[in-house]
């Protein structure tokens, strides 16, 4: 293969007790950036292969399992606000069933998936049967999860001090506005000093059991696996449970004919809670609620806290989603002649998600409406058909020709309904059948199809030189008639120099291969199904009469987003292959970016789907593997170290009319996608003289409502004497300078130790939590203990502003104040295992037996002051990424496990 491909073998996949495929991949492969969005059980991850190549066309790679493209993303129709913490259909996959994962990164490797390969392709191959006696494997682990750090928040005494200072500054009063008495502005209860985070979180267990059998005869081979995973949430309302089953079967009825089927069933259950900044989120409210409020009232009810009582919300609100996933394919391959085979396959990915939520009539966001419940279902179906012919011949002993031509068709349906009801008799009635009022009901369906023809031709000369040419033509129903098809060619050359005669006489390089590839790939992932059409939608009803309204402007010119990618690669190794390197340099240029381009609202529309703008990603990836100690030489001691480092430079190079998009997270020509945009702080005003001397910030006839000493000075960037929206600039970037992973694996006799360190350097995080939390003495939110360093006439040497109710100077506007270094280095995973010696396991009647202990997120070093630097409150957004907004942090997990083979 001449393309840029990273792969992960079975051992790596299976040796860690990971809950998801993405968790296995995280940090292990160069150029593959994977971030868990939060510590939410079963929650989504953000995956970027070689950066982002799209603004709103979608940036997730294509996942293909055993040849079947997967339904990806969040299909929940539930109307509860989970912030950026969505569920993800990828969570359904069981990592234990995987034999190998290949990541296709460049245009040539990915070309066979042409239309959707702009963001890379993740090819997953599951385990298959063997023509051997049955091999039974059993594994189990159990562990506990907890927060790895706590951000210090104020206690009651500190809270009183700051808030009373804030009220006095704003209103000139002399009494305490906040205290334990009944007329406190923020209601309290005598003596209350609640650590809400402690009340809302607790260490939570997780565990898994899995078993598999594989074997077969000459003509029939099978692999059967099953597993169960249970992951409780540290916020008790959350949790994730999953059951997986799989049968992979191969049957060769004739010498020339082989048939096979893969069937995987998944049942997943998500217990969910409102997340991120939602004002009914248990976690967010644990951070925001004043410590001076108790959990319970004197008569045992929920205390009416400033933000909905987080312990109450954790106990009273319910949201659950249950998925049933059927993933499978059937295939038949026939060998027409030596080197000429045909293969037809039929694939199915069918997901049914049943969801419900309930909010009590007695407490919470819908108590005013007598409680509320949702019932929703999604039916997501993807059918794929593929036919292809492969040929592979070697002529005259040294001219290898191979290739494939084929066609595929994909039929997608997304169907579902949602019903909402309110007015429940009591909190014991949780289903809509008991609701007095059905407030809304929706049911809808949407289809899209993809038809593709593809071909690959490869010529190899004497195993030294390989040239490959690919072409794929895709038609998508999402585009208008004239622009339905896109053609995506690519080519690559691999030259194995070490096999050339002139290299035979050197002994430095044990292997050397050079790769070059160039090609075109496409994208339409996040495009609406009918984005090119001018539409009037139903549902614009009034007074119980149906109505229609213009909902979308036509754009018949809409066409595929295209990415051109150049890849230069080298693979070389020295010291008899004990030290191996893979180096890749790439340039990706995306044009015809699919953007829901903002249009003047005076048109009555918000945006139009259009092909506008260009973006580039340039990067360097280095992967090195060192077999430092080899067992043959070191009396059984082995030590392998692999390091991958990648650097990606993202830049938006053109936009429609050079118009910027977005607010605090912004898209602008010449800048990286989703950079952070805001004001620049310049210390604290110490006197009115300083305020007078500076550009006009906030003035008011009432000096208590204007900028005053102790407030933040913002830079007048354009020098016009006024601080306004024009004084904002790029103040941070979500993109790291470099990132990577370092894995060390050591084994001695039966003992194995694997330590995996993940690192990311140079990215910024916009700590949106502090916008509210560090608004000293204002609105009642609890603060971080940073507040104790605030400016006072006695404490002037500080960067923290004064306490004042209402924050007249808008000290909390988006500024450099909340942009923090998001760099981190983290001992992501460490495993210590012991495998029983063969004679001992023989005596026990087992083939192999291993016990291990594992730690995840064991140790983290970061300057980031929030809960976790690996954070993403923006969810699936391409633009909003480096954002922390009351996001549940990653957890530290310790597990013990056992693997037994029979």
């Amino acid at each position: 293969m001449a393309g840029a491909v990273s792969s992960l073998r079975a051992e790596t996949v299976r040796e860690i007790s990971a809950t998801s495929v993405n968790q296995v991949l995280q940090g292990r492969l160069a150029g593959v950036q994977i971030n868990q969005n939060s510590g939410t059980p079963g929650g989504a991850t953000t995956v970027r292969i070689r950066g982002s190549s799209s603004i709103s066309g979608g940036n997730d790679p294509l996942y293909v399992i055993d040849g079947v493209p997967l339904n990806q993303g969040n299909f929940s129709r539930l109307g509860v606000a989970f912030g950026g913490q969505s569920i993800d259909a990828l969570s359904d996959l069981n990592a234990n069933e995987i034999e190998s994962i290949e990541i296709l990164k460049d245009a040539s490797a990915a070309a066979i998936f042409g239309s959707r390969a702009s963001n890379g392709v993740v090819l997953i191959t599951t385990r298959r049967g063997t023509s051997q006696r049955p091999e039974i494997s059993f594994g189990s682990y159990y562990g506990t999860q907890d927060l790895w750090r706590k951000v210090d928040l104020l206690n009651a005494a500190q809270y009183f001090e700051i808030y009373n200072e804030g009220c006095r500054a704003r209103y000139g009063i002399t009494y305490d506005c906040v205290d334990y008495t009944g007329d406190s502005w923020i209601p309290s209860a005598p003596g209350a000093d609640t650590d809400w985070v402690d009340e809302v979180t607790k260490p939570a267990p997780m565990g898994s059991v899995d078993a598999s059998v594989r074997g077969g005869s000459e003509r029939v081979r099978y692999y059967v696996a099953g597993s169960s995973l249970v992951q409780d949430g540290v916020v008790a309302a959350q949790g994730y449970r999953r059951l997986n089953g799989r049968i992979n079967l191969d049957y060769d009825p004739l010498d020339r004919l082989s048939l096979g089927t893969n069937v995987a069933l998944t049942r997943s259950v998500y217990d969910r809670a409102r997340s991120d900044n939602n004002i009914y989120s248990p976690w967010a409210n644990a951070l925001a609620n004043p410590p001076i409020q108790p959990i319970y009232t004197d008569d045992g009810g929920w205390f009416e806290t400033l933000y909905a009582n987080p312990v109450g919300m954790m106990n009273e609100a319910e949201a659950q989603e249950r998925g049933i996933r059927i993933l499978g394919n059937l295939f038949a391959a026939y060998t027409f002649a030596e080197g000429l085979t045909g293969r037809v396959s039929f694939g199915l990915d069918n997901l049914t998600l049943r969801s419900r939520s309930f909010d009590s009539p007695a407490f919470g966001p819908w108590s005013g409406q007598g409680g509320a419940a949702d019932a929703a279902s999604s039916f997501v179906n993807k059918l794929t058909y593929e036919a292809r012919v492969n040929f592979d011949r070697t002529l005259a002993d040294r001219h290898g020709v191979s290739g494939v031509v084929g066609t595929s068709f994909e039929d997608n349906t997304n169907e579902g309904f949602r019903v909402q009801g309110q007015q429940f008799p009591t909190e014991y009635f949780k289903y809509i059948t008991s609701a007095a009022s059905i407030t809304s009901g929706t049911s809808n369906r949407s289809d899209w199809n993809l038809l593709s023809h593809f071909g690959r031709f490869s010529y190899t000369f004497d195993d030294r030189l390989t040239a490959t040419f690919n072409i794929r033509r895709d038609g998508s129903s999402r585009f208008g008639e004239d622009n339905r098809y896109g053609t995506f060619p690519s080519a690559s050359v691999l030259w194995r120099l070490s096999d050339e005669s002139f290299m035979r006489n050197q002994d430095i390089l044990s292997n050397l291969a050079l790769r070059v590839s160039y090609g075109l790939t496409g994208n339409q992932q996040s495009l609406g199904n009918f984005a090119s059409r001018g539409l009037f939608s139903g549902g614009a009803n009034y007074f119980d009469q149906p109505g229609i309204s213009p909902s979308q402007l036509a754009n018949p010119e809409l066409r595929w987003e295209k990415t051109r990618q150049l890849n230069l690669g080298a693979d070389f190794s020295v010291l008899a292959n004990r030290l191996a390197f893979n180096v890749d340099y790439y340039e990706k240029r995306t044009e015809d970016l699919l953007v829901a381009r903002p249009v003047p609202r005076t048109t009555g529309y918000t945006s139009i789907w259009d092909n506008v703008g260009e973006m580039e990603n340039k990067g360097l990836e280095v992967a090195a593997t060192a077999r430092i100690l080899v067992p043959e030489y070191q009396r059984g001691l082995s030590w392998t170290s692999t390091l991958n480092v990648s650097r990606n430079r993202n830049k938006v190079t053109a936009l429609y009319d050079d118009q910027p998009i977005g607010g605090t997270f912004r898209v602008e020509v010449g800048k990286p996608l989703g950079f952070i945009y805001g004001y620049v702080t310049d210390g604290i005003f110490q006197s009115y003289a300083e305020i007078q001397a500076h550009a006009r910030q906030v003035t008011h006839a009432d000096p208590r409502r204007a900028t005053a000493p102790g407030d933040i000075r913002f830079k007048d960037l354009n020098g016009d004497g006024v601080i306004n929206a024009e004084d904002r600039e790029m103040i941070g970037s979500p993109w790291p300078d470099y990132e990577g992973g370092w894995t060390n694996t050591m084994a001695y006799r039966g003992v194995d130790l694997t330590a995996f360190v993940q690192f990311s350097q140079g990215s910024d995080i916009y700590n949106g939590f502090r916008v509210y939390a560090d608004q000293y003495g204002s609105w009642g939110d609890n603060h971080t203990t940073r507040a104790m360093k605030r400016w006072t006439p006695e404490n002037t040497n500080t960067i923290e502003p004064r306490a004042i109710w209402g924050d007249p100077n808008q000290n909390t506007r988006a500024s450099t104040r909340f942009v923090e270094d998001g760099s981190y280095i983290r001992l992501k995973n460490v495993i210590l295992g012991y495998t029983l010696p063969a004679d001992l396991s023989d005596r026990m009647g087992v083939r192999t037996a291993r016990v291990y202990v594992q730690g995840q997120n064991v140790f983290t070093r970061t300057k980031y002051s929030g809960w976790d630097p690996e954070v993403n409150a923006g969810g699936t957004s391409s633009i909003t990424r480096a954002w922390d907004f009351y996001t549940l942090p990653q957890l530290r997990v310790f597990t013990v496990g056992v693997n037994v083979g029979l």
Partner: protein
Amino acid sequence: MRMKYMIVAAAILVSACDSQLVTDPTAAIDSETALTTARGIELALNGAYRSLQFGSREHVAYPDLYADNLDFTGTFQTDREFSLRNIQPSNGGVLGIWANAYIGINRANGVLDGIPNASDLSSSRQALYRGEALFIRATHYLSLVRWFGGVPLVLTPSKGVGEESLVSRNTQAEVYARIIQDLEEAATLLPAGRDPGKATRGAANALLARAYLDIGNHALARDKATSVISDPTYSLVANFRSLYTTKHSSESIYEVHFTVNNSNSLAFWFFPQEEGGRWGFSPTAEIYGLYGPTDVRRGASINITAGKRYIFKYPRIGTEDDNLILIRLAEMYLARAEANAYLNAPDATVLADINMVRNRAGATPVSVSGQAALLDAVFNERRLELAFEGHRFFDLRRYGKAQEKLQMEPNRLIIPIPQAELDVNENLTQNPGY
């Protein structure tokens, strides 16, 4: 034999054909054909009415929050900027007011444009629908011009986003002129009497009275108010509170209708947490203290739970289907009183209208004389009567009292053009001072 397989394989390869690449939406129709029939126009007109529901929370809260009737007690930065009277052009609430109005305007324009092309539409229906669409469009423009000053007058439906969509601002006078032209025409097309939730002649006249008052045409404001007051369709309800507990009362002139399946979140936003709301805003101590001891309007407008004052004019927290009274008869009495005061009508004429409103509320009658005192009396009465109905700031500004009372800079008397709009339309200019 081998050939046969090859043929089969080839057949499979080409079998998937182009027609499978056509899929159709299930909840939308193509825009070219949407407005070509009478039924299409009717449906689109309902869609245009629907647009009057947009931004009901901002319609109710912002004019009072930007003034002295409401305190900010919520969490939204956008609301806070209104309460501080320090609005940034990036404020999402500002964009909402702007965008919602233009969505409604485009919907109304679609109906106006489509009426002549709908072959099976009778001429009487043509006139009725045109009147309704003009009323809806004028309502949106009145909201726009009051908040932003002069705005672009868009009078045809949008077909694309070419150069023609990069509109420039018209002057405030031009916008008012168009509002008045549209409403005057609507008044001739719309039926008299009551049709709940629909535009009527009375509604057009009432809105005209408001618009004429805004531009200082007091004679016409008086005449339009009088035409509504003398219309037997409308009468003040005896029980002030029933205005907010009964839909489409005899006093209501135009009311945006909401249902359980098509609800708003007014009560949710205004009620305190103890009552199942969010309490984003709280009536100020000042307005709470202004009502006289016998005035039933205090209790009907402001309620208190757990020490929290809250807006009580939208009380259907359980079902969230409070209607939004856009304009009602009491405003017409006060509009006529204001116009008459400017026109130097006899004191008694002005006082009669004011006291009509006060008497109904159980408040003691006012008795003052002289233009200034009469204007003050109307001004004060409007605050008490029309609190939380979308008036306060505009009243303060019309009376020239906003700057002094609210301690605000003159530039802040209109809000900024949304930054997002300036970003995509180079022909738009920002209001001074932003």
